[in-house]
């Protein structure tokens, strides 16, 4: 920055009075915000800043010293377990670019000049700032033992360190980690995974001295030694020198020594506060940039967050408090209430497969604190609860060897929930009385990394995120350190169970029964209309959910035309107009073309109809032709022409059997072993029109090359030399699933019998909108049970299911043909009650066809 530019910086150091040098108009009134550090906390800060709308005030540049964008340092050792380094990546450079943030990687900041308000990089580049955020993290502490600078000595913090260690280990047989704390054990695990004979050297009398007590440390040591990692405690290293058997020799103060090829230091961390020291910012005696609750340093234009920051004399070496600081810093910059008010240092991790947890006052330092202990050296389990004098509140805990109770205990601790009596029941689990279920308040924080409360998670589940993954991506819970995963799953499961009680018991507020029960009630009571079913078993007017479900049940059972008077008001719009609604309010039309087999005359008819009505045509995935853009009032005329030419409805609009896809089979194909086209015709004509809980797709392949992709269908048939193999319950779509092999080498008759039974069993017992895959997966006994019902007829309902299918096959009608013959039904296709015709919505031409030209708002 030039001297002239400096004058434009306001006196209070906060605001820029005016700038002419940036050039771009929309950045002219923005402040320059520089962020030093692109680690987990630095990246979180940028994300939060963007979320808070900070980019409207700040032009942001981020400097990362490492060549990689922010990655998940907490799970670094997983790279040695086979995880790709890219999988740890948290920040996407493209996201920075799209957001308009400059991300400079491999850019080491060397000089902070607070008077000039500039940063200077190692390469001499200079950057002026209005506000500066230091998120420089920490550096590993290397004890000044003579010989510590020898080649083959490493620290363990970055992906770069990992790569160097990995290279060194390629020629090494043994490894030693100095430091038996949390990171040291992680590092030891990394060496072990690289195949080295590994030892851990700890100065203190036990492992993880900060988090564990003597018994806990001893149990952990037993477990780790059982995995082949030797643990040496109370060892002070005097010097590192040339070894005889291996590269290095460590001499200890007690006169003993060990030798190793690779040496890792993990003796704690020190805040990376060089820039702060050098520029005269206030730092702590033992390092760390002093910050207030808003994360301001002693220079109000400069903020510090994460492991480089010192708050009330404390460094917070965990990711969750770092994230909390990041949020507080964003609030300081953009306005907001969030302040950093300290953080709980409870930790849980899995070290070499051993659960270790430490909560709150693990060492029972609180006055009057009492301890409850469980020590099981046989199974390697140690648990300690620290309670208040009355045993009512949990003050702290230690868990080694079994961390299942961690989240539960943490919630007792953090939320001050009264302990069950006697509290010992929390320790002994199944041996004693089961502890009372933990009821958390909605305000309880489940994920402290992302500050997600139980209430947030419950709301996300209720909003339709029923998969754990969906809840994670929408709330971010569990995506930080991952320590809350178990508890998160419990809350999700519990919420689903809460919803499920309602969902299982009732379809919606109008029926206290699920689809399967309603099917049964309608069948047994011979109820043939929605009103009859509702009056007897439900309440209210109904809704879009129960009406369409009941419509489907009635169609499956009695197979009456969906537009008959009692049924028409129940149909979802696709069934109501026997066509598929598109985003501009018009519909698409799909004539049946079984197996994709169509005559030239048929193709010409479809082409002529499409041309006459200005329809967009496209080949579907089910080997048919879809004609788009038909207005409601045009549908009867279009179908009049198609039916006259011999086409029938393809029923693409129904939750029903769609298509049987096929290869050309042995008639033409050199490799075909069976006539797949003929079987396809038989199957499609047999099952067409069957209404089911969800759509059904079939395919038949004429040989094992499987060109029809039958294994991705609800019903898939693949030819063999001796007959047909039947595959069931596959699907594509959102959650693709391969079909399972159900029976082999079937003749056509048996094949059809099995399909009859399976489809009717599904129609009877499937849930609303449940595809065959989920239906089978949810069945107790799964595929084997389904085989026993269908093939072995274990329930004795085989004949009944076949008879029901015969009934449906026998009463099939082309819904369009019968609609065209009924003036009352045709009335429904008049566009308005007081005017038969509508206007075609706006169109534009694209690649030679008409497509909607309409401002469609984004669906949120």
């Amino acid at each position, binding site marked *: 920055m030039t001297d002239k530019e400096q004058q434009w910086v306001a006196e209070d150091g906060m605001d820029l009075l005016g700038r002419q040098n940036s050039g771009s108009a929309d950045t002219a009134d923005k402040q320059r915000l520089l962020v030093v550090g692109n680690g987990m906390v630095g990246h979180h800060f940028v994300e939060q800043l963007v979320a808070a709308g900070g980019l409207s005030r700040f032009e942001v540049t981020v400097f990362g010293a490492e060549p990689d964008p922010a990655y998940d340092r907490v799970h670094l050792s997983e790279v040695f377990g086979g995880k790709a380094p890219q999988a740890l990546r948290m920040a996407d450079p493209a996201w920075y670019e799209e957001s308009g943030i400059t991300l400079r990687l491999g850019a080491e900041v060397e000089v902070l000049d607070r008077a000039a308000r500039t940063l200077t990089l190692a390469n001499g580049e200079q950057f002026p700032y209005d506000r500066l955020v230091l998120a420089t993290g920490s550096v590993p502490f290397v004890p000044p033992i003579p010989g510590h600078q020898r080649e083959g000595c490493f620290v363990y913090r970055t992906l770069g360190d990992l790569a160097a260690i990995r290279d060194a280990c390629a020629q090494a047989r043994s490894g030693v980690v100095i430091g038996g704390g949390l990171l040291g054990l992680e590092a030891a695990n990394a060496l072990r995974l690289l195949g080295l004979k590994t030892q851990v050297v700890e100065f203190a009398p036990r492992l993880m001295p900060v988090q564990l007590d003597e018994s806990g440390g001893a149990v952990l040591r037993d477990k780790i030694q059982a995995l082949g990692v030797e643990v040496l405690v109370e060892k002070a290293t005097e010097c590192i020198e040339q070894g005889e058997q291996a590269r290095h020799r460590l001499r200890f103060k007690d006169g003993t020594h060990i030798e190793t090829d690779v040496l890792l230091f993990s003796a704690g961390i020190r805040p990376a506060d060089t820039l702060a020291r050098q520029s005269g910012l206030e730092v702590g005696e033992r390092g760390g940039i002093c910050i207030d609750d808003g994360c301001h340093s002693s220079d109000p234009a400069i903020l510090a967050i994460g492991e480089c920051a010192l708050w009330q004399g404390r460094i917070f070496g965990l990711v969750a408090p770092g994230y909390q600081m990041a949020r507080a810093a964003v609030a300081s910059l953009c306005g907001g209430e969030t302040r950093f008010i300290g953080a709980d240092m409870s930790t849980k991790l899995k070290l070499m497969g051993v659960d270790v947890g430490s909560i709150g006052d693990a060492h029972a330092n609180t006055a009057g604190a009492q301890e409850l202990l469980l020590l099981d050296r046989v199974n390697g389990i140690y648990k300690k609860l620290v309670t208040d004098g009355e045993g009512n509140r949990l003050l702290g805990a230690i868990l080694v060897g079994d961390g299942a109770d961690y989240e539960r205990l943490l919630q007792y601790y953090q939320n001050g929930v009264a302990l069950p009596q006697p509290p010992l029941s929390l320790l002994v689990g199944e041996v004693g009385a089961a502890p009372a279920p933990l009821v958390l308040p909605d305000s309880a924080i489940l994920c402290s990394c992302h500050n997600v409360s139980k209430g947030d998670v419950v709301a996300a589940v209720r909003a339709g995120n029923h998969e754990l993954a969906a809840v994670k991506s929408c709330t971010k819970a569990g995506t930080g350190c991952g320590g809350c995963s178990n508890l998160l799953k419990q809350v999700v499961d519990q919420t689903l169970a809460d919803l499920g009680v309602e969902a299982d018991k009732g379809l919606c507020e109008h029926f206290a029964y699920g689809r399967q029960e309603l099917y049964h009630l309608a069948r047994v009571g011979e109820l043939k209309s929605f009103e009859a079913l509702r009056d007897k078993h439900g309440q*209210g*007017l*109904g809704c879009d959910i129960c*009406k369409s479900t009941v419509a489907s049940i009635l169609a499956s059972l009695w197979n009456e035309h969906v537009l008959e008077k009692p049924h028409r008001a129940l149909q979802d719009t696709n069934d*109501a107009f026997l066509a598929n609604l598109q985003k501009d309010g018009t519909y698409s039309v799909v004539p049946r073309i079984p197996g994709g087999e169509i005559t030239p005359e048929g193709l010409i008819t479809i082409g002529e109809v499409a041309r006459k009505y200005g329809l967009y045509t496209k080949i579907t995935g089910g080997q048919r032709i879809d004609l788009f853009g038909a207005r409601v009032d045009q549908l009867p005329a279009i179908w009049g022409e198609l039916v006259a030419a011999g086409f029938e409805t393809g029923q693409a609009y129904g939750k029903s059997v769609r298509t049987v896809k096929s290869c050309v089979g042995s008639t033409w194909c050199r490799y075909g072993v069976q006539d797949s086209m003929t079987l396809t015709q038989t199957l499609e004509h047999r099952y067409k029109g069957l209404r089911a809980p969800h759509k059904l797709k079939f395919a038949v392949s004429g040989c094992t090359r499987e060109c029809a992709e039958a294994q991705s269908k609800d019903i898939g048939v693949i030819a063999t030399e001796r007959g047909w193999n039947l595959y069931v319950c596959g699907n594509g779509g959102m959650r693709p699933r391969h079909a399972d092999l159900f029976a082999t080498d079937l003749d056509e008759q048996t094949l059809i019998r099995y399909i009859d039974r399976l489809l009717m069993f599904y129609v009877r017992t499937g849930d609303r909108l449940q595809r065959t895959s989920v239906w089978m997966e949810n069945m107790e006994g799964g595929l084997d049970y389904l085989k026993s019902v269908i093939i072995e007829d274990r329930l004795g309902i085989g004949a009944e299911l076949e008879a029901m299918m015969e009934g449906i096959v026998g009463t099939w009608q082309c819904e369009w043909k019968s609609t065209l013959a009924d003036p009352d039904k045709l009335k429904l296709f008049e566009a308005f*009650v007081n005017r038969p015709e509508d206007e075609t919505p706006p169109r534009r031409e694209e690649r030679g066809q008409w497509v909607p030209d309409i401002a469609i708002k984004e669906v949120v």
Partner: protein
Amino acid sequence: MSDIKEETLQSEPGAWHRVCELAALPEQAGRSAWLEGRVLALFRLGEHVYALDGVDPLAGVAVLGRGLVGDAGGEPVVASPLYKQRYALMDGRCLDDPALSVACWPVRLEGSEVWVQLG
């Protein structure tokens, strides 16, 4: 459209318009109507008729008259056939997204005829 205009008493705001015979509206269902260049969505529950603007506010296309009619906690609603948001027949507010609503017009029955007042 000309025949509709003849039946219009006045075309200024607040005027009542005859739309159709009650019998032309299906029970417990919706039906689109054309009035003064607008698409209305009429819903008949017994002898009661409701009129909402027919345009789904999210998609900008006139499909509400094709939605399924029902009730939510006893309040009559229609679910848009496009993305299933429910709108109250009484006031046009969206039950699933407070940011959305559709206009709602007064309806009265005169003998067997349905009349709507466009505001």
